[in-house]
């Protein structure tokens, strides 16, 4: 059994060098980790499970990767090897990302981007890798379904000054400021995405399309009291009936406040705040402006 194990490991290495990721993973997964002579060696088992999961992920095979990362999750708490733990975290985040659990993936990527200790298991984690993790966190957050939780993560990322140096920052800023994203910006963002992030959904739109349309719809609700579906479609760059369908879904999922008048083909966006509160806010901001003027006068010695 020991010889078989060694041969498999050697073959897996060769497949890996050939970038035959799935074959390499299959070779390793043939090693009996549950009953063989290694069954007692938790560290060896954990290392192998994480390795197999990473190899499957190289071929974007999140399903098989998840099988092994689940096995690893039962052993990782007892592990002392920081390198393996980090690999496990990377793997877990990438599996969530591949399975389009974008918000969970974003949180894990962000946690990894904040790694303090750079020297792990004799290897240096360089700035570039941390930036990649941060960029992945931003990308996944942008792709996540619009709503309050995503807004909180966006706020965290936007306020993290490391993000202002990322290439993806302009789009992060517009998404955070709830501004409508125009097609050129979306296309530029699309170029940076991984294949699975551009995958087709059952309704034959892509993950990106859906994220962008929902985002733009929410952004439009901040700008409009009401809008016809004709114009909304023109604004979002999609067919009016599709805009209506997505708006209806978001309203029913309580991710946007509003009502749809199908006779007039108009969507009316509800204001989250009552008129009286609006008045209070207006009075507060008028008084704030007055204070600003008085401060300016003070500063200028008037």
């Amino acid at each position, binding site marked *: 059994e020991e010889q078989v194990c060694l041969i498999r490991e050697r073959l897996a290495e060769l497949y890996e060098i050939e970038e035959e990721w799935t074959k390499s993973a299959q070779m390793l997964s043939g090693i009996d980790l549950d009953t063989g002579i290694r069954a007692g060696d938790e560290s060896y088992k954990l290392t192998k499970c994480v390795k197999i999961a990473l190899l499957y992920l190289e071929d974007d095979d999140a399903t098989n990767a998840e099988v092994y990362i689940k096995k690893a999750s039962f052993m990782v708490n007892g592990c002392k090897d920081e390198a393996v733990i980090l690999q496990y975290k990377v793997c877990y985040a990438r599996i969530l990302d591949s399975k389009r659990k974008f918000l969970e993936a974003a949180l894990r990527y962000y946690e990894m981007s904040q790694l303090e200790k750079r020297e792990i298991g004799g290897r240096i984690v360089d700035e570039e890798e941390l930036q990649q993790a941060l960029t992945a966190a931003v990308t996944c957050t942008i792709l996540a379904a619009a709503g309050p939780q995503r807004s909180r993560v966006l706020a965290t990322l936007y306020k993290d000054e490391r993000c202002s140096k990322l290439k993806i920052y302009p789009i992060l800023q517009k998404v955070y400021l709830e*501004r*409508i994203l125009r097609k050129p910006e979306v296309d530029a963002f699309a170029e940076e995405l991984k294949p699975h992030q551009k995958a087709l959904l059952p309704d034959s739109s892509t993950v990106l399309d859906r994220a962008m349309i929902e985002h733009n719809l929410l952004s439009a609700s901040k*700008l*409009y*009291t*009401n*809008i*016809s579906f004709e*114009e909304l479609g*023109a*604004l979002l760059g999609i067919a009016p009936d599709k805009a209506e369908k997505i708006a209806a879904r978001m309203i029913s999922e309580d991710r946007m406040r509003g009502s749809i008048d199908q006779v*007039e083909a*108009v969507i*009316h966006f509800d204001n989250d705040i009552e008129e009286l509160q609006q008045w209070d806010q*207006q009075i507060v*901001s008028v008084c*704030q*402006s007055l204070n*600003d003027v008085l401060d300016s006068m003070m500063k200028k010695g008037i």
Partner: protein
Amino acid sequence: MEVEERQSELVEQFVMLAKSARGRAAAELIAHATSHPSLFAFAELLAMPHIGELQGTEHSSSLDVLKLFAHGTWSDYKCNASNLPQLLPQQQLKLKQLTVLTLAETTKVLPYDLLMRELDVSNVRDLEDLLINDCMYAGIVRGKLDQCRRCFEVSFAAGRDLRPGQLENMMQTLENWLAKSEFLLSNIQEKIKWADGMNESDKRHKKEVEEKQEEVRKSV
């Protein structure tokens, strides 16, 4: 305030440059200032001596452009286009942005028809894109677009340079506001006094009722 804060440095830069720029250099400075995407204030530059000296020279049309950007609108430009140099695209956009600010001075609800006429825009989509991208996202106005009523409700608009004669109006509005605030304040104080009075009389009434209750209880 944000707009003022953002552009105060720019204003200072251009004023500094205007101290040494004369003739052609001053004309180029005006073109640069009226093209800058973040500058919406021109009164300071207009007040600089070297800029005023352009009057009557070969560069006086640049001075006219600066006056147009300080106080005028897109319609003013179109009426006077033959006497003014051809505006660059970024200058045209800026003058339209300034026109929205001027329109927002008169009323808080701007009808689409008025906006489309004053901004020379032929359809709703283009008008709304201009208001969204170049006004709301530029931070010079805040508000809501209402397609059913075909109007733009302005909740905030940055201040433009004051036109001659506007100061009196502004003082008058401030006086009215002061008077109204004082009236409201005295009104509220009166209501508070009334409420206190009512509270006192309720307390007295309640005390009388309790005393009467006590008497009845004793007699029974």
